[in-house]
């Protein structure tokens, strides 16, 4: 792969006495798409939020494009964050503002002049297919549309790094598709470096250059998608994989296809 775009070294995060992240190391190359998977509560969100310091790390280093993120002042963080797009599980749209304003928000506060901002915002909305909803309030939109606005908002700043924290986890299954389509499109065409937290196995298989499996605050498995699904070694990771793959009705066929040599009949008991 290319040069290292993002490097996480021995990241630790304590919430009070509870250590949610226990020494995570991760390197992401420029243009690489890394999918982080793992059971709920294993620390995925914490890790991804530490990257742009929405959560302050307790220990460890984060290097982005050669910058010591962990050491930047609040002021420096402000401009750094403009280079890093973040898509939230719960969309985190500003209710007071309409769709276009939500998308323009970052641009305006980044000092982009109004016309330019408008142009960029419309471009972003066009990318997610929601230009026609520009004047609507977020509350008027479906969950999938809201998340697409969230994506457009992150895109509008033309980030070098996109961080996705379970962007589809809050959506009705029927709405997941439209979001995943946008994401897949972005991942494959933009060349932007991406760190994606998701449980979407097929999506991960299709999009990920690398899958990082986390459990109990640590990275337990890391590798190409095929490897990961073929050879689960960690106990926790194994169980998690069993569960996420069991969600699909054509599970046996899918397993045969993506996980050769792994023959399991019937249901897996959680």
């Amino acid at each position: 792969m290319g040069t290292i775009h993002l490097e996480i070294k021995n990241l630790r995060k304590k919430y009070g006495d509870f250590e949610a992240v226990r020494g995570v190391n991760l390197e992401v190359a420029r243009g690489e798409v890394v999918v982080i998977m793992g059971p709920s509560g294993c620390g995925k969100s914490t890790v991804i939020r530490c990257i742009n310091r929405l959560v302050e790390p307790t220990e460890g280093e984060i290097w982005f494009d050669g910058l010591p993120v962990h050491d930047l002042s609040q002021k420096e963080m402000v401009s750094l964050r403009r280079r890093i797009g973040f898509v939230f599980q719960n969309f985190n749209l500003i209710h007071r503002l309409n769709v276009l304003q939500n998308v323009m928000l970052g641009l305006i506060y980044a000092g982009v002049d109004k016309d330019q901002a408008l142009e960029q915002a419309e471009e972003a909305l066009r990318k997610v297919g929601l230009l026609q909803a520009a004047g609507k309030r977020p509350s008027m939109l479906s969950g999938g549309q809201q998340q697409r606005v969230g994506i457009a908002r992150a895109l509008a700043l033309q980030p070098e790094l996109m961080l996705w924290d379970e962007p589809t986890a809050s959506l009705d299954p029927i709405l997941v598709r439209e979001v995943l389509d946008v994401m897949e499109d972005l991942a494959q065409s933009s060349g932007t470096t991406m760190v994606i937290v998701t449980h979407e196995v097929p999506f991960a298989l299709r999009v990920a250059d690398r899958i990082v499996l986390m459990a109990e605050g640590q990275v337990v498995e890391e590798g190409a998608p095929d490897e990961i699904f073929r050879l689960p070694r960690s106990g926790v990771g194994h169980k998690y994989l069993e569960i996420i793959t069991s969600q699909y009705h054509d599970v046996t066929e899918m397993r045969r296809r993506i996980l050769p040599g792994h023959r399991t009949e019937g249901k897996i008991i959680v």
Partner: protein
Amino acid sequence: MATPVIRLKNRFFSFWRQDSFIKDIFSLIIITILIGGAISFGLAWVVDAYFGDTVTGLIGDVGQYDLILHVREDAADMAKKELEKIIAQNFPGAEYKQAPTVAGRANFLLALPDEYKNREVLENIDSYFSTLPGGNGHTFIIAPVVTVRGVQFGAKGMLIKRLQELPGVKFAFVSGSNVLAVLTEDADSKAITQKAQEILDDYRTIEVRFPMGYQIKDISATGERLVMAIQDRIQPKLVKDVTLSEETSDMQAFLDALVEMKRFLLGYASEVEIKLDPSAALRVGDRVVLQGASPQPLVVGDTLRPDNLVVDIISIQGDTAKGIITQGDISDIAHGQLEFSAESGQGPIVTKSYRLERGTDIGQLVGETIIHNDRFELMLAIDESIKLLEELEVMAAEADETSQHLLATLDAYEDTLDQIARVEETLRSVNQSLDGPLTQLGRLNIDELVSTLKNTGKSIDYLLATMGLVNPPSAGQLADVEQSYSEVQGRTGLDQVLKDINPVVQLLRKFRERINQFALQVDTFGSLAENSDLVHRLMQDIGGATTSALSAMEQVDVDALRQDLKDITARLKAIGNLDTELVRRQMQDVRSTLPDLTDEEIGRSVRLIDRYIGGEVIPGERLEILVDSGVRADEVKPVIAEMLGTEDFSVLEAPIGTLQPDVRGILFSVLREVRSTIAGLTAVVFTLIILWLDHALIVTALRKLIPSRKQVAKGWARIWQRCLPDLAALYSGAVGGTVLLGSYLLSGGAIPLLSPVHILIIGVLAGLGTAALSERISPVSEAEIYAGLSLGMRKTDILREIVIPEGRPGISNLLNRRKLRFQ
């Protein structure tokens, strides 16, 4: 180089510096304080204006009404009717108005006409309205007035007297423990208040308190002794026992009345004075027997008879004992063995008295007894005076007549004198002509002499006739009257005039006889014409008589007598002008008011009073003495200690009363207080609202925006770090304190009992409370904050663009409008 503290401080300030939201906060707080002050002040002002009107509506304008009569609500209608009746009967022209009912009490405002605004009426106002159904007392709102509160009972009279002496004070009166000085409309009440204060400053009360359980048996007597001791030792301008408070004062007044009654009775009782024999060991309270009306002389060993006189000994001084008759009456003695008669009031009675033993036995002789009775003497004097008065009028008229006659007499006297002078002259010329043989001229002269003598005779007759009218016995009587009144009028005179004239009159009578003789002989003159010897003898005879009469008459100074008579006449006229009838009636009144009591009755009453007074002493544990302000408590202390033989008491000084602004003044000061209290409370409420509307949101947002530290600090910094996580709470407390104190002070707020420091503390506590509850009062969408952060927005921008616009519509929201990029 930087210490952890400074580092943290720097961090804190850099946080605020980079987020210019701090400026927003500052302007927000300043504007909030201004608005809070204005609102608090404004609301208080509105309330004040409203209450001010209400008060005016409630009790009228200053001076419009004089008192409020309180009546039970349910009796209000009946009371109204009765009130109208009372007004018509006692205060015609008075106006009343029913004021609002407060707490079950109906109130009637009463304005009295000026003629009823005086001490007598106002002090007895309750008695006028005693028939008011449901009556529940009254409150004076008379104005302008200076009120002295809590006036020492014993100082009231003196205080009233002194207040009334102040110019501008119409009158002063007592209402409860207050003394109210009613001022004239145009009086300078401030100056009078100050003068009143000066009066109060002239006096003080000294209170002597004894420890619990210590009781003075007879507080009144002890107080009296203390007053005497202070008088003796310190010699203050004023010292007075005022121990007995109002509650006990009725009793004291009754006791005083009894004492007075006793004194009065004793004044009319027969005064018995016994010159004690040296052997008689008589003591106060012993009883002695006098013979009294009994015909039997007293004999040692006999038993007491009902018609004997019994005397109680009330005092003994040296060898003289005094007593009062408790059996029998002084008048009884008149029928006894003594020459004394009560009716005639002839001097004191002297008799012997014997000790009365075992209540009935006549014991040892104790001494000679003298009995006076002022009552009889006075009665007698009055009777005499009345009798005299009745005669006086008649006598005055008679005397006037007499003096008129005397004046006429004096005129006649002078005429006679002239006539006699002429006789003498004629005689002289006759004698000259008689030197030779009786000539024609001589005859003529004799003729003239005869006619002159005849005229003189007539003059004398007239003089004597007028003299006869003078009526000497009546003049004597008049002299008596004059004597009686000489003490009043200062001079005597009429009798003097008569005395002067009478001897001359005797002489004149003789002269008249001579004239008669002479005239008789001259009638026969013709036949005697040649007898010049006879003529000579006759001439000599009449000449001698004339000279002596003339010289006697000339000795009387008629002019002086006339002047005297004129004076006397004037004085008699004055007596005649006296309204003797009135004087007589008054004297009769005096006589009829003299107690128609026998000595026995008087004596028994006195004994009864004594017994009562003796038993009714008021015990107490404190003494109160009114003194002038020159007397200090520490001066008095040793005097008391010496007197009571104990040091176990405390001495306190107190003013005799304190000035109080008039009712109106109080009301308005209460209103002022209400006003500032309302302002203060409004500031508090305002602060709470502001904290709730504006700052709870900011606190919540700050909590989410203040970055948590990566590393755990060590040492002192750790403590700071412990505190800093709640910087938001510190902020909230600071805002609460600042806003509350600021708007409180700005609004002129003043909540009773709370100082600005208290207010600051309340503000800080309210702020901290808000911080504690901020999450619940004003939740902030964490998601949106993260969204903002993730988009590279500054915290300031997040607050302005996301947090505050979504918060409640407070002042911050309003101010933030202009900062919004997305309207």
